[in-house]
């Protein structure tokens, strides 16, 4: 059974909660006591139907205000796959949450109301999905029941979106006409849309190919922790623990250790259950090497003939996550793979209008929920790949040095 992580973004009235509720309900993932609890809570609020949003809105403030404040994680499984849903509110002021949910997702579920077609919000979701490198997008044209299940309506929305999304590179986009309310094409195939030959949403989620979502080419192993047991049994053992960030490592491979640049060979790939023949992303393993080289946390083991870029000057697309705007001359702590260092903002190149995708060269203030392109200089060299090539080695966390808060999420461009 494989694990698929997907994110769903949408506003209150486009039927997102109903859709997720439908998926959970039809796959028997809602428990009776949970259902009773939200049923009772809905009745208490004077609502006539059971409000499935109450399932995900877990905090008191969210229930009181009837809004989703934070990313909620939901889990369900079918015999084929286990699913983790990062359910995020879709309104513009929650871009930060959408970005958070998107950062680990294999697939983005974007809902379009069949009556309204592609609206600004749809474009924003698609842009964020593309920016965060989500490999697959499922456009669910919802409320087909309200447009008499007409093929023309679906086709129009599909071609509108195709026109718009041609700006994005290599996205795998699927289109599904559904009615979340009646269950058409969600778990079961609709009887009212014979013209649609594609799969249902659940079938897509269960079968979409995700093995290639990880980078299988560029071997990257950021060293996380050094294991030195110094026991009698493992007297000279020195293991480098970490999670493979790209490519496939095998014993005997010639590798280079960065930043020192020393070249050696992998001796073994260890685990508590015995040695492994190979390790690939996202496996957590322990490596030993042939030579006695000084290696510590923050170093990166890579294939000798395929090395990452190395520089102190990097360009980022940044999503800002704090009320305090980006200081255009500021210094911040950054985290990149297993390294922590500092950076100085050198330049704000432009801000992106997330609704029109236009570059704003006039107003370059990067405030909460803004997305922009910046240039930074780091205190020590980073070993990285462009985010588009590898999410693990191309992502950066920006932290405020005074408040310790996570203020920005960066994706390396070059």
């Amino acid at each position: 059974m494989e694990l698929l992580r997907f994110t769903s973004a949408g506003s209150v009235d486009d039927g997102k909660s109903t859709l997720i509720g439908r998926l959970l309900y039809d796959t028997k993932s809602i428990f009776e006591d949970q259902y009773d609890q939200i049923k009772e809570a809905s009745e208490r609020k004077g609502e006539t139907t059971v409000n499935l949003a109450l399932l995900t809105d877990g905090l008191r403030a969210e229930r009181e205000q009837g809004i989703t404040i934070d990313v909620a994680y939901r889990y369900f499984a079918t015999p084929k796959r286990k699913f983790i849903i990062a359910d995020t509110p879709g309104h513009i002021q929650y871009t930060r949450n959408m970005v958070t949910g998107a950062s680990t997702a294999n697939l983005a579920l974007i809902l379009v109301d069949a009556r309204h077609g592609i609206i600004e919000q749809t474009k924003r979701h698609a842009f964020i999905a593309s920016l965060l490198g989500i490999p697959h997008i499922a456009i669910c044209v919802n409320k087909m029941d309200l447009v008499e299940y007409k093929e023309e309506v679906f086709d129009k929305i599909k071609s509108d979106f195709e026109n718009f999304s041609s700006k994005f590179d290599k996205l795998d986009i699927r289109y599904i006409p559904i009615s979340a309310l009646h269950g058409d094409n969600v778990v079961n195939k609709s009887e009212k849309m014979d013209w649609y030959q594609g799969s249902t949403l659940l079938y897509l989620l269960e079968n979409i190919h995700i093995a290639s979502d990880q980078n299988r080419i560029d071997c990257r192993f950021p060293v996380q922790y050094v294991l030195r047991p110094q026991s009698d049994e493992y007297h000279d053992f020195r293991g480098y623990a970490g999670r493979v960030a790209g490519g496939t490592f095998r014993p005997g491979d010639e590798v280079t250790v960065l930043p020192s640049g020393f070249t050696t060979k992998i001796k073994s790939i260890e685990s508590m259950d015995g040695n492994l023949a190979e390790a690939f992303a996202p496996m957590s393993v322990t490596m030993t090497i042939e030579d006695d080289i000084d290696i510590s946390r923050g170093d990166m083991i890579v294939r000798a003939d395929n090395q990452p870029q190395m520089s102190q000057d990097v360009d980022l697309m940044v999503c800002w996550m704090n009320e305090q705007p980006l200081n255009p001359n500021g210094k911040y702590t950054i985290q990149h793979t297993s390294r922590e260092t500092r950076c100085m903002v050198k330049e704000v190149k432009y801000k992106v209008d997330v609704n029109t995708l236009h570059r704003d060269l006039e107003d370059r203030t990067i405030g909460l929920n803004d997305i922009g392109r910046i240039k930074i200089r780091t205190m020590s060299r980073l070993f990285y790949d462009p985010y588009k090539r590898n999410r693990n080695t191309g992502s950066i966390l920006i932290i405020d040095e005074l408040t310790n808060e996570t203020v920005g999420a960066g994706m390396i461009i070059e």
Partner: protein
Amino acid sequence: MVDYQLNHLQELESESIFVLREVAARFERPSLMFSGGKDSIVMLHLARKAFHPCKVPFPLLHVDTGHNFPETIAFRDQLVEKIGAKLVVAKVQDSIDQGKSKEETGVNASRNGLQTVTLLDALEDLKTDAAMGGARRDEEKARAKERFFSHRDEFGQWDPKNQRPELWNLFNSKKAMGEHFRIFPISNWTEMDIWQYILAEKIDIPNLYFSHKRRCVNRDGILLAESPYLNMKENEEVKEYQVRFRTIGDMTCTGASLSDADSLEKIIEEVAATRQTERGGRSDDKRSEAAMEDRKTQGYF
């Protein structure tokens, strides 16, 4: 061609091991909360895998309410001895004796809420800067909003509306003096994942989880085990039932469920078919709709 794709348990395992190693690398004095329940047993197993062939590089901390099942305590001591870990036991009774907590009264009296005081004191004594817990997001709706690295202020409190965003696998562990972190390495596991993993890895668990005969009281639909700590109502009757426990907490608030499942395979079958949540038998969660959120805000796990 080899299909380079992990199965869901391997991927969850890898994620949790990554988190555990981050904790060891970034904090000075982490500790691992160990209750003797299945989730903390799995977390400890993952910690052993994360640091093999080294020993687990942090102590286990057990907040002992004094109302535990004796089977849990026996299991805990055996396991600790087997793996050579360091165990610290913080006793709720000590906090009561020192006048820091007050025993609840009435028939539904429980020491569950009292654990918070003892826990925060123990974390302070150990100078813990990162306390790892086996809480899972699927357990309870307030927990669905938790981070892997969850920041706590100097009072040990959780501010759910003001959490740090958590992206990719980059965790922010920055804090001011006196603050600490709660870390949840198995956030993304579900009850089913835990059971499948216990079966796949052949992990030992207390026999309370398997079907056995036990004398219980049926109180408002929840079967509570007969024990010296349970205050009885008038007219309440103790009867023998064939039961097992889905979660293990205090004897006073953990409900048993009727079950014939006496093997891991049968438990998995039962979990797959069940229509009640795991914590449905926990009377501590039934006190109000936001019972868990309120306890967590104050410093509970």
